[in-house]
């Protein structure tokens, strides 16, 4: 979990007790709070607007707003950071480039841009910050490209200005990959444009030729039109159509059938028949069908490519939010922010509470507790002091420490885990799309049918035999088949992303449709990923006293107890002293209150011993509360299971999934969570290291589909190796990069939706395939009967393609309607 999200969680937890304004979600002032009312409003204006919206029957606005707010993490606000690291040499080398003699430019991801007003505000930057020459925002990718004069302004000042506007900037990595993707997009568009123009012109010529068939046409002009069609058709094959031939050759070399193969066969047959018939001056030419085919297939592929790219872009934005900076301690004892990439082993860095360690190292001074769940899956904090090793990507929770850097970047434990992830991703069998699996059979069946047609006709009429056999190859060229999958997936991925489910690769949907084994990570996926009071035993009057004391600490245990107290009036505490890893002591309302571990409080009555034993049996951490030296209550703390977990897991199991828990946490804890979810003990694997997780995934892979759901770096290798990896909300950068799908809303309900939506999507794909194969069956029958003509092909082909388009966009896959 990044500090930003942690902050957001606490902000949400802190504002939770008072019901927010029903319209604007801001806290309601105590004076306007109406006890007993269904809805609370923070002001009269909000009440009026709410009434108007309701009166017009537009309540859906609130549902929409809530789903958007979940994704974007609340309203835009400035973070107040200084962005000194943006002026670093290492940062400049990585992200800034020279635009021309005078200007530098850089691309930054902005948090919270979403509408036309944002475009206006961001692009006014040259007016707000002197020295900025231009700011261009790309709304779809949340990416701004700024150009500035280095002599007049520094990048950190620009970043601060953007931050003040409420758009926290983050360096956008992989500028080269983005540039390559952009060029790829342009090439795609150019191919479509050429194919489209040629198809249009060929159809005009074909129209003249077809009308000529009916009303007569002079042979001279007929031949002229055919020659022009020939030129255009061959151009279409040689330029935009080249991709299919290249794909077909690649699939032959790899001995893996792909849909490109039957397409290339059809296109080649049409090209050859066309050339021969034009030269002969008689017989059908299929250039109109051929050029339209190229155009439609390219359009379908481009749509799918664009939809998946936008999902991938959204995920990339999320992991750009991870901090890539550190506080370097200079020899004179002060610290300044630098980019994490510019650290060297031997440097000393300062890490404050709630910050993420930028590198692996050893604690030099200070004490803190660290949350290492991202690396280990262990949900309980670990105390560290001088001499203890700490690792990059873990978070310091309570104290400030100085760390001597030992390893950076790829040398850190996270870096090595990431290398494992890349290795796992390489070894993963590529997902073979349904249509590609059909393609092999398709080629076999079509060529056999063509041979049969030839054999049937050859004794009656050898010329007709050749013509019919070739015509069969042409008209069965799988246009609708080629559109079936891209269109269904485009529609589904688009709908899913509006529901907060980002799917990076469409083929993943096909695999999620068929149940197999689902391995769930425990911490953060099934559970909430943070400590909370699960049980309070003993005197309930002690809750406010304990909360008063704990409100002085930012320790997770303290926060859990404060959250448990809710918004009840908390008295104030004085003389608070903390002993790290043990407890807190202080005076509240003139009484000495102690909250801490079992050994921290000396008093141990019989009921307490029993309560502690019960808590330990349920794998919860006991915290004792004592007033004036007498133990009065026991808080049992744990990582609570999400509310929707049980229902979601039951649904998944009813759908045929075998659900297993796979966690790095203590086996007892994992078993306890598994029990509460109704899972068998054998299906709860605890203390799993990343390597162990990978082994489990590989073992399960031999039985069939494996879906891994997780959020930490320790899950990343397993996510990459699994048939389909799903990263959940708040996940670490590594897991986002390794997964095929990302769920923006926390909890397990989106996983159920993802699986069910996938099943419906595959249903749509199947129906599409059925429709296009039915068309092909008709076409084959006509060919074998010797009845086919280029006119009939020109009518049948667009009909089948239109059917597929209609079926794809009409069907409900994710969510209700559009």
């Amino acid at each position, binding site marked *: 979990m990044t500090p930003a999200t942690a902050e957001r969680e606490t902000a949400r937890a802190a504002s939770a007790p008072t019901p927010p304004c029903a319209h604007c979600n801001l806290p309601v002032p105590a004076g306007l709070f109406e006890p007993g009312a269904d809805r609370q409003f923070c002001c009269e204006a909000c009440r009026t607007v709410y009434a108007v919206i309701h009166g017009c029957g537009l309540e859906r606005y609130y549902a929409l707003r809530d789903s958007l707010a979940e994704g974007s993490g609340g309203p835009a606000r400035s973070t107040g950071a200084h962005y000194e690291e943006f002026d670093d040499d290492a940062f400049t080398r990585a992200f800034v480039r020279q635009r021309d003699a005078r200007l530098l430019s850089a691309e930054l991801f902005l948090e919270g841009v979403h509408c*036309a007003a944002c475009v*206006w505000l961001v692009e006014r930057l040259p007016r707000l910050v002197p020295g900025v020459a231009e700011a*261009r925002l*790309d709304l779809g990718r949340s990416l701004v490209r700024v150009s500035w004069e280095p002599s007049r302004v520094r990048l950190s000042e620009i970043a601060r200005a953007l931050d003040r506007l409420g758009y926290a900037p983050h360096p956008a990595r992989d500028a080269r990959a983005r540039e390559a993707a952009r060029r790829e997009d*342009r090439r795609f568009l150019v191919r479509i444009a050429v194919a489209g*123009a040629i198809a249009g012109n060929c159809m005009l010529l074909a129209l003249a030729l077809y009308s000529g068939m009916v009303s007569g046409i002079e042979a001279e002009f007929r031949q*002229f*039109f055919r020659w022009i069609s020939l030129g255009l058709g061959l151009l279409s094959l040689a330029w935009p159509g080249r991709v299919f031939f290249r794909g077909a050759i690649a699939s032959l070399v790899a001995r893996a059938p792909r849909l490109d193969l039957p397409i290339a066969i059809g296109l080649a047959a049409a090209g050859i028949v066309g050339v021969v018939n034009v030269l002969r001056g008689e017989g059908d030419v299929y250039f109109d069908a051929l050029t339209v085919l190229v155009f439609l297939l390219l359009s379908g592929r481009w749509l799918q490519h664009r939809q998946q790219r936008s999902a991938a872009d959204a995920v990339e934005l999320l992991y750009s939010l991870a901090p890539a900076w550190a506080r370097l301690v200079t020899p004179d004892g002060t610290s300044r922010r630098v980019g994490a990439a510019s650290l060297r082993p031997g440097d000393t860095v300062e890490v404050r509470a709630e910050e993420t360690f930028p590198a692996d190292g050893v604690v030099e001074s200070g004490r803190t507790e660290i949350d290492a769940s991202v690396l280990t899956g262990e949900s309980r904090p670990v105390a560290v002091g001088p001499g203890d090793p700490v690792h990059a990507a873990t978070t310091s929770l309570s104290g400030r420490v100085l760390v001597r850097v030992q390893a950076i970047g790829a040398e850190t434990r996270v870096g090595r885990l990431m290398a494992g992830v890349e290795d796992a991703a390489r070894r993963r069998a590529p997902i073979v799309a349904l249509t590609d699996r059909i393609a092999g059979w398709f080629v076999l069946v079509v060529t056999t049918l063509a041979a049969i047609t030839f054999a049937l006709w050859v004794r009656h009429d050898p010329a007709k035999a050749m013509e019919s056999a070739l015509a069969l190859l042409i008209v069965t060229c799988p246009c609708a088949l080629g559109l079936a999958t891209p269109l269904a997936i485009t529609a589904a991925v688009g709908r899913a992303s509006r529901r907060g489910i980002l799917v990076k690769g469409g083929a993943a949907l096909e695999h999620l449709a068929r149940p197999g084994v689902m391995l769930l990570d425990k911490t953060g996926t099934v559970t909430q990923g943070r400590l909370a009071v699960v049980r309070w035993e003993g005197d309930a009057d002690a809750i406010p006293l304990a909360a008063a004391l704990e409100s002085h600490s930012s320790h997770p245990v303290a926060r859990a107890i404060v959250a448990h107290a809710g918004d009840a009036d908390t008295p104030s505490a004085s003389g608070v002293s903390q002993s790290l890893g043990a407890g807190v002591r202080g005076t509240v309302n003139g009484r000495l209150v102690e909250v801490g571990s079992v050994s921290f409080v000396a008093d141990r009555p019989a009921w307490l011993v029993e309560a502690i034993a019960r808590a330990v049996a349920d794998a919860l951490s006991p915290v004792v509360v004592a007033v004036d030296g007498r133990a009065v209550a026991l808080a049992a703390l744990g990582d609570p299971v999400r509310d929707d977990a049980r229902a979601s897991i039951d649904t998944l199991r009813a759908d045929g999934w075998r659900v297993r828990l796979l966690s790095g946490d203590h086996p007892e804890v994992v078993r306890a969570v598994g029990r509460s979810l109704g899972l068998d003990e054998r299906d709860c694997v605890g203390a799993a290291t990343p390597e162990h997780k990978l082994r489990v995934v590989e073992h399960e892979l031999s039985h069939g589909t494996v879906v891994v759901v997780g959020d930490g770096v320790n899950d990343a290798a397993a996510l990459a190796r699994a048939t389909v990896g799903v990263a959940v909300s708040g996940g670490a950068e590594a897991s986002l990069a390794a997964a095929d799908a990302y769920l923006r809303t926390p909890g397990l309900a989106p996983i159920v939706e993802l699986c069910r939506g996938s099943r419906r999507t595959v249903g749509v794909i199947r129906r599409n395939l059925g429709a296009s194969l039915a068309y092909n069956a008709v076409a084959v029958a006509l060919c074998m009967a010797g009845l086919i003509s280029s006119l009939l092909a020109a009518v049948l082909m667009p009909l089948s393609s239109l059917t597929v388009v209609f079926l794809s966009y009409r069907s409900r896959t994710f969510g209700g309607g559009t």
Partner: protein
Amino acid sequence: MSVIYLVLPLAIVLAALGVWAFIRAARQGQFDDLETPAARMLPDDDPPEQAPRS
């Protein structure tokens, strides 16, 4: 009817011109972002004497 020998190539040349213009625009990146320009036209322009946009 022999005028068709002139008109048809001419039509194709015109179409080719259109395609050429599109390819130029695409290569310049005019189709990279199809979302923002639609939003960019919504706010009013500033009065020209203040600062014309480059």
